């Protein structure tokens, strides 16, 4: 399964560096997902792979296909824009759901709900 496209030297070096940097960043994010203690710390970790990691890997793909077809190919930009737009939305929804669940159970250390308290006063 070891194969690679036939790229000129500058493109090969650029693609290799971008790929390695992107995959190492994604791995660091997943290791954070594994190592951090509470959910509210863990929810920060995979965004490292979602923003910088995917940006670097998609830039490597853009450079590779542009060098192969000798014209600018930017369709990877679509994935990048989509992931960058959707990741904050999903993770904020997930953190909201987790806060709601923890508050309704009332055992985990969650910050108090200031809005509700102000309404009562």
């Amino acid at each position, binding site marked *: 399964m070891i194969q690679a496209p036939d790229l000129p030297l500058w493109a090969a070096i650029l693609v290799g560096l971008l790929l390695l940097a*992107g995959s190492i960043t*994604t791995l660091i994010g997943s290791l954070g997902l*594994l190592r951090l203690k509470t959910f509210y710390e863990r929810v920060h970790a995979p965004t490292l*792979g979602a923003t910088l990691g995917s940006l670097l890997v998609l830039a490597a793909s853009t450079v590779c296909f542009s060098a192969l077809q000798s014209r600018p190919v930017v369709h990877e930009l679509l*994935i990048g824009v989509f992931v960058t737009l959707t990741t904050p939305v999903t*993770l904020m929804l997930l953190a909201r759901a987790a806060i709601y669940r923890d508050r309704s159970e009332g055992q985990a250390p969650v910050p108090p709900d200031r809005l509700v308290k102000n309404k009562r006063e």
Partner: protein
Amino acid sequence: MNTLFLALVITASQILLGISMLCATWRMLRGPRAQDRVLGLDALYLGAMLLLVTYGIQTGRTLYYEAALAIGLLGFTGTVALSKFLMRGEVIE
């Protein structure tokens, strides 16, 4: 020489992405609560998407790019539906 170096680098980055997917799978299977499992699933589909992009670089075909785009779209929908389920207890009200 040039191609061999690039092939080794692509394989190494695929192995790194695979290890990160394994970490996400561990969190998905062993997460203490349901929100941890959803977070692991989110990280897992992101790793799968990046792995498909590296396969596209390796073979030089644009087929893998379309598969990665489909995984990105469907994974977003899945995570939103799951977190809405965790909050409300049902997906469509």
